[in-house]
């Protein structure tokens, strides 16, 4: 069942001439893990903000078309209701710290306090969420004393703890090291397997290829390709826009020019596919 429905969606920020999003049609099913890719300025963040309700409730401007999440139209709702269904974490972790809490534990509980969760349940939910994202040892630290990557985990945990139906993430791993990134992708995949719908804008293509159910490529505010990671990430359209190409795909593409990749074999997008393909070539020779 579609939990997010966008129909003929176009949006223009105030005081701008061009559309940030043009004619977007998209249905996202419950429990799906969607990755949004595309170069800077392609409209990934705008699409995230729209699904999360900040367009049009926070950023005004011109929004046309239909935006529905969990059967509710964005125009029939307000932000404080909307955020109960849709959680948003974005890129800059420093500004996602509420600023009014003195420890990480309190910081994560901030959202639960705002929606009136009883104290005992709040403690349990915060502890579970911290366990899930592996930040239990940070509980008593000040959120400001953490590194960028740690702050990003705190920001993600602060949203996960609210248990939204749809989780929107705008480059949530931008300041993380490779291991941190992998851990976060695993957590997000687990949440999606448990039924949470995930929409994630991300530049780290190799991880997207490995974990996402569907990839949507945006360019100049429009959807230019969508489908399985395999279909989208090997599409020649991505070569034209120069973004969203996995290094495994690029390597195999060059290899195929030197007859080091089987012509009939699809290009790989993950390390596992690349390994299998190259081993095949080696064994045949």
């Amino acid at each position, binding site marked *: 069942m579609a939990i997010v429905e966008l129909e003929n969606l176009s949006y223009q920020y105030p005081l701008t001439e061009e559309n940030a999003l043009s004619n977007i049609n998209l249905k996202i099913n419950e429990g799906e893990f969607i990755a949004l890719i595309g170069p800077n300025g392609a409209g990934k963040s705008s699409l995230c903000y729209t699904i*999360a309700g*900040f367009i049009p409730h*926070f950023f005004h401007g011109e929004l046309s078309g239909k935006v529905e999440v969990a059967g509710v139209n964005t125009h029939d709702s307000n*932000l*404080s209701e909307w*955020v*109960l269904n849709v*959680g*948003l*974490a*974005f890129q*800059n972790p*420093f*500004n*996602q*710290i*509420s*600023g*009014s*809490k*003195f420890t990480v*534990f*309190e910081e994560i*509980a*901030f*959202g*639960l*306090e*705002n*929606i*009136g*969760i*009883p*104290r005992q349940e*709040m*403690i349990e939910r*915060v502890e579970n969420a911290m366990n899930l994202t592996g930040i239990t040892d940070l509980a008593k630290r*000040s959120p*400001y*004393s953490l590194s960028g990557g740690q702050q990003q985990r705190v*920001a993600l945990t*602060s*949203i996960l703890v*609210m248990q939204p139906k749809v989780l929107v993430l705008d480059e949530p791993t931008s300041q993380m090291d490779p291991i941190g990134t992998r851990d976060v992708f695993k957590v997000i995949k687990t949440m999606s397997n448990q039924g949470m719908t995930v929409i994630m804008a991300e530049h780290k293509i190799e991880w997207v290829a490995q974990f996402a159910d569907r990839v949507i490529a945006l360019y100049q505010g429009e959807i230019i390709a969508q489908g399985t990671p395999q279909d989208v990430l090997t599409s020649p359209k991505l070569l034209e826009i120069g973004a969203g190409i996995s290094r495994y795909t690029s390597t195999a593409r060059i290899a195929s020019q030197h007859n080091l990749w089987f012509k009939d074999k699809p290009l790989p997008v993950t390390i596992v596919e690349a390994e299998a393909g190259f081993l095949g070539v080696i064994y045949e020779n």
Partner: protein
Amino acid sequence: MRENLTFYLDRDSAIHKINPFTKLTLVFTLIILAFLVPYFWLPSIIFFLVIIPLSFTGKVQTEFINAVGRLLLPVIGFIFVMQALFYPTEGRLLFQIWFIDITVESVKYAFSTSTRILVMVSSFILLLLTTHPSQLMSDLTRRGMPGTLSYVITSTLQIIPQMRIKANTIIDAQRSRGMETSGNIFKRAGAVLPLVGPLVFGSIVDVEERAIAIEARAFTSPLKKTSLREINDPELEKYSRWFLLLIMIITIGIRLWQS
């Protein structure tokens, strides 16, 4: 560098365990007594026989006396001198500096003003040393203070040190591009200007993002907020607060009736 501007010291004491609102009520009662009861020695008695012993009970005496000494003595000294010198009064001459007459009355007046201010500020310092700001704000929010106001207060305590760190980063960045930031006063003043733009505009951008972040966590939700912090409020303290309120009302009443 300190991460926040709080005075709070985490100690295990009876004062720490008292409900924040009770402590706040006591602070206001002491201030009203010190300012409105016409007995000359009362502010000094309150300071020495109530506030200082309480700082020992709260196990924060060293820091308390330090803070009072450093923050308050210069201010009180200044007030004392100004009042003594310029409080216009006819009275018994104590001594004369140049053409200014120092009278017994003006010294008395200066003493009474200074001790009143001492009670006011030191009782607040004691409150802040023994009460975590989150605890105080959670309790006040629970009693009906707007959540936005408590957010503004607690976030200010943290954001100011963060802005200082940011300012230092900007200065370092400018310096690495060859800007002079040391030298005589004019050079240093000139170095402040390029700092203002990035700091102010950067902060405005930060405000927008922070607004999104706290909205995403249902900050403006109309639902009744709860608190992670458990705040004790035993019956006895409720009665004590009513008693303190009564004292305040009587003091104010007598003062109004007398005038």
